[in-house]
């Protein structure tokens, strides 16, 4: 039976995040937390495989208690099982520490043939999780997948169409394999009432740093994260260009075209 893991993340909708003009810090208040949009595509790809070949889909995330909502969304869309890794000790983790915790917990859940994750997160946007999770799972790796073409359960391989910078590649990889998918062919579905209701009542498996056996405290959270963020600042911008404002837009455009005469 095909066993699929989908790694997801709850993120603030960064399009709605504003910067406090006085302090230069982020205003997160009132910004809704959403399931990372790329993760929705990953989930959709996983669920379609399950529908076609049978098997189970497990969703896992690391985050605060509220991240449960993102997992319920996955359950509504058709995931069978949801796992929340939540602990203060996990906070401030970079991708190295996060991938370590997720892979350690996943070992408690069984052996996964395929692992899916979003190509990047809306907030961190490093795009590193896929590679590092693949490393932690000792999996082969297929990024930029536009379409999954074939699954061979006997040979334990998966064939996919990848969209690269200058062309399209067909690649076959052995299981376990980690995949990131492109948006176009894997738009998220809308769950029906029955699925939605089940997702609201479903039990969510929870793990903390103490309930994952053998977890090395030096490899999780802040201590386990080699990258640090010593400071942030608002983007520095230069002076504004020359602002054109004549008495009518017609004249403004005329002035502009005059100024551009030697470039045009």
């Amino acid at each position: 039976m095909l066993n699929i893991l989908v790694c997801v993340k709850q993120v603030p909708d960064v399009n709605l995040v504003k910067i406090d003009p006085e302090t230069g810090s982020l205003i997160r208040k009132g910004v809704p937390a959403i399931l990372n949009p790329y993760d929705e595509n990953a989930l959709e790809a996983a669920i379609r495989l399950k529908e076609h070949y049978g098997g189970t889909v497990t969703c896992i995330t690391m985050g605060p208690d509220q991240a449960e909502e993102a997992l319920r969304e996955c359950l509504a869309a058709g995931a069978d099982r949801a796992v929340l890794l939540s602990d203060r000790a996990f906070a401030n983790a970079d991708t190295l520490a996060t991938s370590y915790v997720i892979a350690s917990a996943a070992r408690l859940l069984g052996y996964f043939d395929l692992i899916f994750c979003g190509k990047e997160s809306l907030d961190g946007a490093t795009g590193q999780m896929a590679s590092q999770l693949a490393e932690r799972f000792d999996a082969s790796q297929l990024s930029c997948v536009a379409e999954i073409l074939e699954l061979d359960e006997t040979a334990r391989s998966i064939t996919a169409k990848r969209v690269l910078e200058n062309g399209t590649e067909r690649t076959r990889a052995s299981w376990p394999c980690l995949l990131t998918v492109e948006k176009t062919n894997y738009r998220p579905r809308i769950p029906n009432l029955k699925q939605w209701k089940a997702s609201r009542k479903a039990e969510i498996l929870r793990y903390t740093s103490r309930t994952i056996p053998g977890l090395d405290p030096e490899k999780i959270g802040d201590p386990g994260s080699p990258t640090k963020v010593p400071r942030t600042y608002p983007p520095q911008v230069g002076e504004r260009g020359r602002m054109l404002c004549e008495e009518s837009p017609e004249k403004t455009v005329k002035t502009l075209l005059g100024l551009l005469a030697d470039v045009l």
Partner: protein
Amino acid sequence: MDKHSYHDMWVYVEHDGNSVQPVSLELCCEIRKLADVAGEKLWAVIVGELAKEELARVLDCGVDKLLIVRGEGWTPFSVDAYTQLFTELCREYRPSAVFVGGSIQGRDFAPRFACRLPTGCTSDATELVYDPKTGDIEFIEPAVGGKMMAVITVPEMRPQVGTIRPGTFRYSPTGPRCCETVYEERSFPLEKIRAEILDFAPDQEDDSLNLADAEVIVCIGNAVKAEALPRYRQLAQLLGGKLACTRPVFDRGLLPFKLVIGQSGAVVKPKLLFSFGVSGAVNHVTGLSDAGCIVAVNKDPDAAIFHYSDYGIVGDMDEICDLLLQQLEG
């Protein structure tokens, strides 16, 4: 870890056997400067054979040392082989930093060998600063959708690994230096490569999707109404230029990804660029740094884009576009 036992900065030179990826040359030029500030050497790591002329272009960036890997299992590229190769090379040679172009290949294997080592990996820095007090590199990159800049460091671990997007830095070779070459003979067992490429179909050449050489560009931002697209296309045509957009316009499904300007898309260098309804997030404007004259039109007088522009007009983008069409046609 004694980070002071790690020396010299590496750039992985990505190539297809014929030509070197421009991003690798851009990185060589930028890391040359960084290495000079740090008092370290610049190594170019090349896997496989490279034609003489191409090698000369790498050396022209002022490389101090060439590390050339020969052997079986490196072509075609595989994440499995290159992850193992860079893990081994880093353990043996102990570089202080490894820079990899942010191509799909680079983004696939660099974080992975960083994980195997393990060490810290950053992606998409737009500025690199060496801090002499700590000996660390500050990777400065846009965060939170470009609303903030974040400084990322790897204070305890070495090497410091970074992937850098194509076009972030300029190709500005300072000429060859006295360069030493080291050959590494090693191979990767083919049976350990777990992904097999069955075939590859190159994209049809579609010149309208190639922004890199466009002399004039009309770029539209998220404020664009779907039904207004044709008039911007028309303006681009009239100017003998190309239509482009920001990432959210692509996300809305209005234009293909190849037309996205910015950190995750194309870096452009037109003589003239019109920007309509673009807010000016850092992720986008990093793709404009080599543009000549920039004209921005936005209804919000406080839009950041005006700070990156030569000329700014506060107004209705569709109206200004129509007026440009009228006056250019007339």
